[in-house]
């Protein structure tokens, strides 16, 4: 699992609320909402001076087998060469029941963001179905789609888009 941190910063509307409520009375106003206590200010590990480091994904194939599958535009079909790659991952999973994978689906940046989440998921599911057919068990596989939110290449051109339409097979233990 890659490292993450979350910072929740309070957004205080209390002062504004006090002012505005004088000129526009709000019949639905719930006075308890206007308390004076400060908001939560939860900081993760930021500010400690420690670097965040970098997660290392476990790859039982020792890097011999690619774990990125690329897709054509508007397609969730595997290319013939990649079917073989997926088959070898399936064998890996079938032979080692303690292994599990997370399939991370991605789309290129074009079009609407949530629809692209759907396109990324469709690609993950193509890989998932193949893994299942070839002996992996459902409990070994989870899927997530990042849509266009985590591009591998940052450009807005055909080449970058091709690199971004992908499924990453990540071994999680």
């Amino acid at each position, binding site marked *: 699992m*890659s*490292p*993450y*941190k*979350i*910072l*929740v*910063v*309070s*957004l*205080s*509307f209390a*002062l*504004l*609320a*006090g*002012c*505005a*409520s*004088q*000129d*526009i009375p*709000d019949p*639905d*106003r719930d006075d308890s*909402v206007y308390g004076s*206590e400060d*908001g*939560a200010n*939860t900081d993760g590990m930021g500010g400690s001076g420690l*670097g*965040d*480091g*970098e997660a290392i994904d476990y790859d039982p194939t020792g890097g011999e087998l690619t774990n990125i599958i690329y897709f054509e535009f508007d397609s969730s079909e595997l290319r013939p060469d990649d079917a073989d790659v997926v088959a070898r991952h399936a064998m890996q999973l079938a032979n080692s029941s303690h292994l599990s994978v997370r399939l*991370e689906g991605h789309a290129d*940046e*074009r*079009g*609407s*963001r*949530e*629809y692209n*989440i*759907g*396109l990324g*998921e*469709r690609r*993950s*599911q193509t890989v*998932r179905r193949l893994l299942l057919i070839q002996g992996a068990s*459902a409990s070994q596989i*989870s*899927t*997530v*789609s*990042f849509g266009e*939110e*985590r591009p591998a290449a*940052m450009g*807005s051109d055909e080449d970058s888009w091709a690199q971004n339409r992908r499924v990453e097979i990540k071994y999680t233990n």
Partner: protein
Amino acid sequence: MRRLLVTVCLISTFLTGVAQAELDIVITEGIKRRPIAIVPFGWQGSSQNIPLDVADVISADLTRSGRFAPIPRDDMLQKPTSGVDMDFDDWSILGVEAVVVGRVTQTGDDAYSVQFQLFDVFGRDQLVGYRMPASSSTMRRVAHRAADMIYEKLTGIAGVFDTKVAYVTAEERRNGRLYSLIVSDQDGENEYKIMESNDPIMSPAWSPDSRRLAYVSFEGNRSSIFIQTLRTGNRLQVSSKPGINGAPAFSPDGRKLVLTLGGVDGNLDIHVLDVNSRQSKRITTHRAIDTEGSWSPDGRYIYFTSDRSGGPQIYRVSANGGTPERVTFEGSYNARPRLSPDGSKLAMVHLDRGNYRIAVMDVERKDLLVLSAGSQDESPSFAPNSDTLIYATRTGRNGVLESVTADGLIRQRLASGQGDVREPVWSPFQRF
């Protein structure tokens, strides 16, 4: 010469950073900007200077609307601070249609009274006058409120200067990308970061009372939906099922969320979640991608994107479920539907000759109007007055925000935020 240019750029960038968030009007076509005078406000208080240049805030608001051209202060022949000192002839000579005068009076330690009056020069009459209490921290908002009243009186359209915008930013950092969820005033001032994460944040959605935001977070490499209360920063995880949890939108009564669930088999469908009971109901069952649900203002329908016909198109279904009906037929790609608060217009992302652009469909007449001019425009969101939309477009690698009137006549770029700015959502009217 080249060095001089660079220096000028650096200085102007610096000024933008420390002074007001800058808004450039990119296009103003087919609209005559009406001359108006916003006279500097008078000040009566213990300190030398007025705590906030209220007239400047009002003037900036009206300028940004694209419909008014406030005259420079130096051109004013008189600077009255109340109606009794108005000489209408002086303003007639200048050709201004309307004059705003006002003053700020200190009434306590950190208490002020802000009053303004709007006069019609031709009719020699007061159109609206109002007095509002303020503190130093609320005075900017009071000024926006005054601008709202002035704008509505002069145009017949409700002003939206006293509203907020939420959006997501992504910045490249040394150790990866940092995603932030930001809330700011609609003029870009008062930015608050309400959440940040090294994992993506998506799809912010306002509650109808504008006190909460729902959003999608990928923390832990899985998607979940949270509802965060803005004032406290407290948040609640409301959906974290296996697979996709996405595209939340509040119902008009604020009690339900429409959202997209994918499940382990990855079949994205529209569901409705009761926020209090956490009971959810599946609304669509098609094996295609069904996502991006949003409610009609009367709460009867859910509009959503589906590619059941091949490419993505917009459909609507009864909020209780049933058979969806297709809404869009023009073009091969229509997604992310959002109805205007008055229910008359449907905004969407529309593929227009190879470019993804914001379009609005008239719900009655069904005709489609393309409003934006970029190639990767997305996330249209209506202002609460149904007159203006905000959306994200691209300049180079970065996303920036633009607003456009629903008739397409006034389009502006908003300079805001750091890094790649995306997914703006306009707040409802602030009722508190």
